[in-house]
Structure formats: structure tokens, C-alpha cells
């Protein structure tokens, strides 16, 4: 979890929601190795994005557990910019791996879209303020 204050790029909660939806339902018992590997990459990206905090998804019970930090119209304000960039970069990498490992064309499209959103968040987070 990064230091406060932190405000996420506005599109990230939506990306997280979409990725979590992708991971539901649980893995098919007859799933193939590439399919499970793609799920693992997505899960890794989701965990990293959740680590950014500020989405009301923190695992720590202390602090304002209920209210997500208000997202500004643009950009990121954070006490640890390097950490944000690092986490977003990692999430993009994981989603790229997931795209590569995905079996179905529809999955590939959905994941590629999520990856693009995270890439945009990455660009926003690195933009000068």
C-alpha cells in the first residue's frame, strides 16, 4: 500500500471492475494451462492495481475504510509517484502477457481494452502537474 495522499486516475476503478468481472466465475475445472496462465496474469495485475489503494478496496481495516478518495477530473496526486508508475507498468506487462496467453478472441479484445486503459492511466500518472 502506498503512502497517502493518493488519488487514482479516474478510469482505474472501472478497469478494476472489468478485470474482476473477467475473473468471475471461478476457473473451469477443465481449463487449459494457457487459460489458467492468463487468469494468473490478470489476477497479478488486479492485485497490483488494488495495491494503489484509494478505491475502497484496501485490505487494511484502519483509516477511512468506506469512502474512496475523491478522484479529480484528471491526473494523479500521490505521495509516491515512482511506486504508482511502477505498479501501473507492471500491470500493463501482466495484461500484455494475459492477452498473449488468452485463448478466445473475445477475451483478447476485452483484455487489450483493459490494458489500454491502464496504459492511459500510466501516461496520466507520469504527466507533469
Amino acid at each position, binding site marked *: 500500500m502506498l503512502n497517502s495522499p493518493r488519488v487514482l486516475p479516474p478510469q482505474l476503478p472501472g478497469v478494476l471492475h472489468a478485470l474482476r468481472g473477467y475473473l468471475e466465475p471461478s*476457473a473451469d475445472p477443465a*481449463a487449459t494451462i494457457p487459460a489458467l496462465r492468463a*487468469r*494468473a496474469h490478470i489476477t497479478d495485475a488486479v492485485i497490483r492495481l*488494488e495495491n494503489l489503494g484509494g478505491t475502497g478496496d484496501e*485490505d*487494511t*481495516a484502519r483509516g477511512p*475504510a468506506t469512502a474512496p478518495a475523491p478522484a479529480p477530473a484528471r491526473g494523479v496526486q500521490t505521495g509516491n509517484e515512482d511506486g504508482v508508475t511502477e505498479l501501473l507498468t507492471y500491470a500493463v506487462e501482466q495484461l500484455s502477457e494475459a492477452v498473449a496467453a488468452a485463448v478466445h478472441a473475445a477475451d483478447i479484445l476485452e483484455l487489450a481494452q483493459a490494458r489500454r486503459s491502464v496504459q492511459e492511466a500510466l501516461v496520466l500518472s507520469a504527466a507533469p502537474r
Partner: protein
Amino acid sequence: MSIDEDWQRGWNGIAADLAQLLDANTASQPLSVADVEAAAGAHAALVALLARVHRDVAGTYNHDAAPSLRLADEHPVAALGSLLQRHPLLAGAALTDSLLDATTPPGQHWASMGRHVALAEHAWTTTHPSTLPRGDAAWAVVADVAAMTQVLATLDRDLAGHLQRQGRSADAEQLRRAAGSGLRVVAAEVQSVATSGPLPAQRWTPALLTVTPVASTEDLARGQARLADLLRSAPVLTPQDVRTVALQQLRLVLTAAESTAEPRLRAELMRLAVTLDPATTRRPRVRSVDEPDPWASAPVRQAQVLHWFVSAKSDPSPALATTVASTATVVVDALSSAAARNLAQGRWLVPNPDSDQPSAPLWVPSPRGTEVQLLTSLRRAQQQAAVAASVAGTVPAGAEPQPTPQATSPAPPAARTVLAPALLARLQRGADPAEGGRRPAVPRDPRPAPPREAPPRVTPPDRGQRRGR
């Protein structure tokens, strides 16, 4: 290697070496220059270690106070710390040199002690600060420190003689002066105080933070064992940590399944991956009362080291699948136990089922019998991991060395117990004429005092009150 082996090997090894040195009566034996160098180096390392351990366990209270009779009388534990901090640190050989150069048996005992001090010091300084011994466990460590200090102070005179013969008069004089500082008497008093109350039957176990590097399939088995140890002893573990470790384990299992041509093993590994999946993909409805602790991320780091090893291997060893299948069970067991422990201890909270605001629930300790999805998933994975391990055991040999389960040997006796007879025998042999014929006072009976009606049970900050008076 078991997680506390570094510490136990080092700490018990010091006690054994000190006992050997007392028995050997080194004062009368000629030592070579290299031996004296080794002895001086090991002596300095031991003084530093005892002072460090004492300070960490007993706190810094009164450590800066100058040693005095009054301090020794009122706060013997603090006086011991003060004297240890001021004990001479001799210049000696580097550890690597002394191990090679020591020639005579006493020199080799000193060199061996230097090695054990290095082991113990490494284990102690890589221990998570929050897991340092407290309460009765702290008293047990204080008693050991006091026992070792008594022997050290007894050996000081022998070493001073050897230093003198090697022409290191200033060092010899320093040690002789220190020998008259009352260190041994204070240490004996502290040992008596420390053992006057209850001491824990179970030995303190350090929570090490170091991860095992993984560069081969054989290392992988050790890395898995270390990961399980780290999970069991992690002082702080968030649900996110558990989820991350489970994810890396799932990836390990997938790579292992991919690498094997053995159909049953592959099928069981795939089932294990599928049963681990819900523990990783579903966001746990569990929160931790602890802030994520960078010190305690060792299990996550170890899990990543394991993942990096298998993901970097383009041509996995045929032994990979059986190694992963036979070791995943200890890791998944440890994950499940860690989750259950944190829930039972109230370190992880669940949403209050009676909350009238499901979107903004109150977080409460998990009531007994509550089903927590993360734990349920891990328990299912535990069962499947056991099946995979049993199948791995039936795979024809030739593929790999199976990781051997760690044998449980009886715990060696405490350092103070090892040292007591040797110290008593040494002191009963009589005084060294070089000391002016004074017969040193026989130490108090080192055995624990018989139980009293109301043994003093104090917390570490009050340990100065643990007096048999």
C-alpha cells in the same frame, strides 16, 4: 534448513565451544600467534554479540549508566548490560583467516566459536524486531547471556596471559582490568535472578527475514520449505500477502504441470491449480488490522524468487513437476494455517454480518464458525495438494531427488545448562597462582530455584525487579 536452525546452531555452538575452552584449561597450553589472533577475534565478536542480545532483550534502560555497586545491587540486569558495553573489544584475526590458521585445539575451539558467533549474530540481526523474545522467553535468553558472560569473564584471564606472551601488553592489561570489573559476579547474580522465575519450556524461535536463493531444482525444494517457514513465523501477514503467495504458487504449479509428460501427475497438478484459483482471483472480504509491513514481506519475496526461477527456465528440468508436487503441500498448508491463525487471533476482520449497511460494513473479528471464503478455498487446495504429493511419490524414480522431510530431533539443552557444570568444575579446580592465589567465589547454584508460592512474573521493562529477595 529450518528457520531457527541458524540461530540454534550458532547459539548452542557458542555454549559448546565455551564449555570446551573451560575444560581445556587453555591457560597452561602454549598458543601460536595465529591461535591468539583467532582467540582475540572470537572474543571480541562474542562480547559484541552478548552486548547486542542483552540490549535488544533488556531494552536500553540504564545501559549508559556507569557500572557501580549500587547499580549492580539495584538493577543487576542493567549493570550487566553496562559492563558488557564497556568490555574490551580486542583486535583480532578476521573470521576467515582464523578458521584457516588456528593450529592447536584451543585455537580451533576459539575459531569455531567465532564461526558460531557469526551464525548467531546473523540470525539475530535478521530477526524481525517484533518477534524478539519477550516475557519469560526474554528471561531465558538473559539467563543464557549471563551464563556465557561468566565463562567469558573466566577465560579473560587465560587470554590475557596469552596476549602478554605475544607481546600485546596493552591488550593484556585491558583484559586484566576488565576481569576485575565485577562482570562475572554481576553475571552470576543476573543468572540467579533470571532463573528464579518460570522459564518457558519451549525455546524461543526467531522469525528470520532472509529468503533462500533459488538457482536449481534442488534449491526449489529448499525455497518451498523456507517459504512455508516464513509464512508460519511471519509476525504480520495481510490477506493480500496470502493472496499474492497463493498466486505465485499457482504459477509454479502451472509450469510444473506443463513440464511433465506423466499424465496422472499432470492432471493432479492441474486440479491443484484450479483449486488454488479462487484463493487468488477472488478479492477476500477480509481486512487486516495491521498495516502492510515491509519487514514482513519476506514470504512474498520468497514466493517471487521461486516464480522468477521457474519463469526464467525455458527448458524445465524433468524433476520440476515432482519437486513442485511434493512440496506444494507444505506451502499450501502454511498458507491455510496462516489465514486461520490471523482470523482466530482477530488480526483479520470480517464484515459484521448484522451490519445494516452492507456497502459500508463495520469490520469485526471473525465469530467462531464463520465461513471465510479465502480460508475455505485454501482448505480445498490443501486437500488437493496432498493428493498431488501422493501421486508425485508414485512417479518412477530417476527423475529427481525427492526433498527429504526434515527430521525432528530433540532440542539440545539450553546454553546455561551446558555451561553450568564446566564453569563449576573450572572454578573448583582452584585459583590461578598468577591471580595472586585468590580462590574465586564459587558461583551460585546455577539450577533454577525451586518454585515459589507466587513466582514473580514481570514483563521485560520491569525485569530489574526480578530479584530473589
